[in-house]
């Protein structure tokens, strides 16, 4: 039997619980999808400064997807989603349809509604970006989904973060800080107490604000899970906002993941400077 794939991308490995919760929602809504991602299912984006390598990675992923018998690939990452449309499908042919997770869940919103029984008092500002909305209307669909949660009020504000996700701001001096300041200003203006991120790169940049500002930061999937009464732990946020991230991860877990790799690759990210 053909099964959908939930293509979570590569950098989502920082947020295992979001992958789990997303798959759980798809299952509960009658559109089960097997999670797939990481280096072996890459769209090529991390290597696109050498297009020949990016193309090879993308072609391998397309061969895997085309050979899977999947009817539909449900995306998470806007880079992956864009690359399917701009490069992968035109050059390899796609024997599957594709949609963003927000679209796949929104299609099943009447099945979602009875799951959202837990009250979550929150005045929510959504970290909306310019760019991806034209491919998949996530800014609109996610607002509609979150508004279905008892107790949630989604505020409206014209601010749209420049760039399709925060990743694209991170390498431009001052850009990420400027966006975080604008976001906090917009939250103050609208009286929002909760910042909801849409994409993974935004989540990892924004969670640090929770330590230094009187707001809560969570991803849209986290908030849906709370509305459904499903427990989860945002480990990345805990680690990022800890005074000693490695201690927060735990010695046993660090050792199992390889201490040298964790110290070299993970710790610098978790301890990077806060911008605002």
């Amino acid at each position: 039997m053909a099964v959908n794939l939930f293509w979570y991308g590569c950098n989502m490995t920082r947020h295992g619980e979001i992958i789990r919760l997303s798959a759980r929602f798809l299952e509960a809504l009658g559109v089960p999808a097997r999670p797939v991602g990481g280096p072996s299912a890459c769209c090529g984006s991390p290597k696109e400064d050498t297009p020949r390598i990016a193309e090879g990675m993308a072609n391998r992923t397309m061969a895997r997807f085309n050979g899977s018998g999947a009817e539909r690939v449900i995306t998470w990452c806007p880079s992956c989603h864009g690359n399917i449309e701009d490069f992968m499908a035109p050059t390899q042919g796609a024997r599957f349809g594709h949609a963003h997770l927000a679209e796949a869940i929104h299609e099943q919103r009447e099945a979602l509604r009875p799951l959202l029984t837990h009250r979550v008092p929150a005045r929510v500002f959504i970290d909306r970006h310019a760019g991806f909305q034209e491919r998949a209307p996530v800014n609109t669909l996610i607002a509609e989904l979150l508004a279905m949660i008892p107790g949630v009020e989604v505020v409206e504000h014209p601010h749209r973060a420049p760039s399709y996700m925060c990743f694209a701001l991170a390498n431009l001096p001052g850009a990420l800080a400027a966006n975080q300041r604008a976001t906090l200003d917009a939250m103050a203006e609208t009286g929002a107490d909760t910042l909801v991120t849409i994409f993974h790169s935004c989540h990892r940049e924004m969670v640090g604000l929770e330590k230094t500002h009187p707001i809560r930061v969570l991803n849209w999937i986290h908030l849906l899970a709370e509305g459904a009464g499903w427990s989860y732990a945002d480990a990345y946020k805990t680690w990022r906002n800890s005074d000693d991230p490695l201690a927060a991860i735990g010695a046993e877990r660090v050792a199992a993941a390889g201490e040298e790799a964790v110290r070299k690759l993970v710790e610098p990210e978790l301890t990077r400077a806060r911008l605002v």
Partner: protein
Amino acid sequence: MGPGERVVEDWSSLRTTERARMTEACTRCGACFAACPMTAHAPATAGADAAATVAGVLGILAGGAGDAAARAWVMACGRTGSCNAACPHGVNPMLLMRLAKFEGQENGTLPKRGAADAMSRVKAFARLTLTEEEQRSWL
């Protein structure tokens, strides 16, 4: 395009086809540059002439060096799509910027991203956040 059908043979063909189409379609009106919110984060674009900057990007797309404003603008592109909405000629400037970046990074006109550790970091986080079974099944 039907299911499973290729439109072009490979990325190189796609780039060649799109480069020709974009170069033909673009009138260098500069509307894309004027609409771009990312220029605020690219100091070298300050005061630049919109039409000249677009011409510079087309120069990079063609394998040239462009000018300082064009190079800075390409590097600052955040795929906001504001350019596509502003373009009156259906050029798809957002893709044009990306293809110009491909060209410039290949020929050394533009700096590379320097993401050598990206996949190693992805794997390290996977070992921290996914169970062994999830790693086997999902990676």
